[in-house]
């Protein structure tokens, strides 16, 4: 097909970050952001499969209306621990701490993050918090729901609330330190020529995410500290019998936990903003608008928290104001979706696995986002609040959005991380399996919600059974979809085809160094002379530009400073 001479098969580099040092100490005491990203990958994957196990138990139990598998207390522990594990130990760290950690320094052309030791510290904090929480799950479990609503959590629950709360509290500091590290790195460590508006949108998305992490996480830390003190020492912050206000807890909790939703989805949007231009081989449509939308989401995201509380008896007019702001926060997401779609037009689209995930993301995020409008609409929320509609909605965002973005990113950068390609056809089959399994699992839950099935029920009236069976069937397909990438990506890391520097090709700085990169990322600090996602003025990519490349002559990618 190609008229060019065949490129020689790429060779696996002799020296890279993975073989720079050997032994367990070289991993546990490393300050290399890439190795820390691998530590996160191992830990996050571990927590993901723990959380997935809980999910499987939930779905198996709900196959029959009376649920024979678990006792009510066991069931309540399962969904609580599923939520806590997935939110705090999988979704929040997944993309930022793995892909962000690995890529942000390389993308801005730096040798490492601004504070490499703090980066390692944040991994240890995460592990300590995670083990603390896991320990509480084994010793007594947790049955408050991941939302820890008072006074159920602080007075009435018979489970290990205090250790779990302490575990989540500790983990929060990991998130704050990671966010701080990203912010400082993006501000101070950009390579020559890497202006703010040449940054990949992955970096912009992480910049916005980091803002939320640094500003929001202290609030959840304080809230959980107060709840823990009420639980342990009987201080009456939230317990009405002692003059406290249980609704105050919800305000504080959602002041963090709503923005936390954006901690989970913004990085995935960042991944999609990389995938779509790369596989459409076309500059991203409306770069500035997409970057600004990330910041707008981060800021407005702080102003919508009481939409989780429309039916707590809060002031009617406060509810109206927060509903309005909820509709406003939907607009930047819509802008992103339109820009991604517009990027496809006039592109040269290939259907490699990462792009399949990007398409999957678009479809699922669209449904997740638009059903969010139902919930933000006061008149409809009166009916579907606290039903399976909510469960379906946030799984479309969190799993359909964040996890699709995460897996798409993992496939896209796997050649960079390991230096080897994954098996393309197997990966495509896995992507389709995931997409089908996901919709099978969660779409019936929208119907259940509209029919009025409340969430967190260990048994239910028989008229809801048909959709629950569908959902469980879908979940088993979904499980296969998750196991496949885990197996073949691991295989590919050792035995995959050698990838070379830039297999796709893509335009970011991370593709201008060897795969896997050196410990120092680049042999010489790169100088950036091109705009983000510009395929037409990059002769180094070896593409055919009709009418020749544009007027600008592109300097060699490696500067000489």
């Amino acid at each position, binding site marked *: *097909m*190609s*008229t060019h001479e065949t490129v020689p098969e790429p060779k696996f580099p002799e020296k890279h970050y993975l073989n720079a040092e050997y032994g367990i100490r070289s991993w546990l005491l490393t300050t290399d952001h890439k190795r820390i990203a691998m530590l996160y990958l191992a830990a996050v994957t571990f927590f993901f499969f723990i959380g997935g196990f809980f999910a499987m138990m939930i779905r198996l139990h709900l196959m029959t209306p009376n649920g024979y598998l678990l006792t*009510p*207390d066991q069931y*309540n522990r399962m969904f609580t621990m599923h939520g806590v594990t997935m939110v705090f130990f999988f979704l929040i760290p997944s993309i930022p701490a793995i892909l962000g950690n690995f890529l942000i320094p390389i993308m801005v052309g730096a040798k490492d993050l601004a504070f490499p030791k703090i980066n390692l510290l944040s991994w240890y904090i995460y592990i300590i918090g995670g083990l603390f929480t896991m320990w509480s799950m084994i010793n007594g479990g947790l049955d408050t729901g991941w939302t820890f*609503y008072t*006074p159920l959590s602080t007075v*009435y629950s018979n489970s290990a609330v205090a250790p779990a709360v302490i575990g989540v509290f500790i983990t929060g500091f990991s998130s704050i330190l990671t966010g701080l590290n990203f912010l400082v790195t993006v501000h101070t460590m950009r390579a020559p020529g890497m202006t703010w508006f040449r940054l990949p949108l992955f970096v912009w998305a992480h910049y916005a995410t980091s803002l939320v992490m640094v500003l929001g996480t202290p609030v959840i830390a304080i809230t959980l500290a107060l709840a823990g003190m009420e639980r342990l020492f009987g201080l009456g912050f939230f317990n*009405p019998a002692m*003059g406290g206000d*249980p609704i105050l807890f919800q305000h504080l909790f959602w002041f963090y936990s709503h923005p936390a939703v954006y901690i989970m989805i913004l990085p995935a949007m960042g991944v999609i903003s990389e995938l779509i231009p790369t596989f*459409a*081989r*076309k*500059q991203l449509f*409306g770069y500035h*608008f997409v970057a600004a939308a990330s910041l707008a989401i981060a800021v407005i995201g702080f102003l919508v928290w009481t939409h989780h509380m429309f*039916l*707590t*008896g809060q002031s009617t007019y406060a*509810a*109206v104001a927060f*509903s309005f702001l909820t*509709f*406003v926060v939907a*607009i930047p997401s*819509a802008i992103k979706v*339109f820009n991604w*779609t*517009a990027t*496809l037009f006039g592109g*040269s*689209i*290939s*259907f490699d696995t990462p792009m399949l995930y990007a398409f999957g993301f*678009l479809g699922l995020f*669209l*449904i997740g986002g638009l059903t969010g*409008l139902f919930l933000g609409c*006061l*008149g*409809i929320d*009166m009916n579907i*609040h*606290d*039903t399976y509609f909510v469960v379906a909605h946030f799984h479309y965002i969190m799993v359909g959005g964040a996890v699709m973005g995460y897996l798409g990113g993992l496939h896209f950068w796997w050649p960079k991380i390991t230096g080897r390609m994954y098996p393309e056809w197997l990966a495509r089959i896995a992507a389709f399996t995931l997409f089908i399994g996901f919709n099978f699992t969660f779409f019936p839950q929208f119907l259940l919600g509209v029919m*009025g099935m*409340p*969430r*967190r*029920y260990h*048994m*239910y*009236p028989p008229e809801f059974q048909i959709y629950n069976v569908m959902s469980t069937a879908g979940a088993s397909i979904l499980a296969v979809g998750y196991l496949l990438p885990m197996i073949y990506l691991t295989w590919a890391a050792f035995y995959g085809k050698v990838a070379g520097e830039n297999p796709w090709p893509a335009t970011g700085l991370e593709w201008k160094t060897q795969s896997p990169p050196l410990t120092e990322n680049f042999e010489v600090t790169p100088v950036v002379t091109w705009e983000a996602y510009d*395929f*037409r003025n990059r002769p180094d990519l*070896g*593409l*055919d530009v009709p009418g020749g490349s544009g007027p600008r002559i592109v300097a060699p990618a490696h500067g000489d400073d």
Partner: protein
Amino acid sequence: MTTLFFAVLVTLLVIFAGFKYRRRNEKEVGDAVSGNMALEIGWTVIPLIIAIVIFAWGAVLYVNYRITPKDTLDIYVIGKQWMWKLQQPNGRKEINELHLPVNQDVKLILGSEDVIHNFYVPAFRVKMDVVPGRYNTMWFRPTKTGKYHFFCSQYCGTNHAVMGGWVTVMDPAEYATWLSGEAGAVNPVSAGEKLFSQLACVTCHLANGTGRAPSLNGVYGGKVLLADGSIVVADEAYIRESILQPKAKIVAGYQPVMPTFQGLVTEEQILNLTAYIKSLQSQPVPAKGAGIALPTAGKK
């Protein structure tokens, strides 16, 4: 509909682009287009306008729901782990069952004895949290006779899933027969009156306004002038708070001498007391010291 429109629109656009612009040559690149201001403004402003319309529509429904109409049938509802206790105006009590007449506005006054619950009737498309330490109210108007599920939809512990029951909507005549069916039902007003003297409320809250505490005649629904100069409306929540935390709001002209009844009265007893105090609404208000703000007092 709008959702469907945008979902279908974007999906079709993506699929169309996927076919039309699929890669035909390994070395091919896309067009040199990087943005279009008119499009950006268009797809910001149009969705924003649509969003505002949907928002306004939902907000109107919600505000109507939160403002209870007059002349409602008032049902007291208490949630506790893991059952519902419901009481008709004449004192007839039910557990996990609620009988109502058709075509009548119904107000539920919701209280909790322990954790947060939520009263949810999917068929009526309404729900409201039941929060310990305060009253919430919700209202609806059943328009069809029949039996409908109600659920607890705020997770409340072990048996959250079984904390539900049935709303039975009946013809008014049938309802009247049902209502008078149970012998020995104690009217909440008379139960409250009895408590009022048992708990010695009556020693200070003299009806003629000469006691150490304000007369409660006509208080319910009126405006009360407080010692700090502010004015509150004496609703169920205010009465409840005054029983449990008497020092929270002191009526102008009175000393904070009332002891707290926190832990001494059950939620049901508070409801009975409230029902009794509400029944005093029609009693003549004494001229002196009732603590009720005159219509002009608020203007100063």
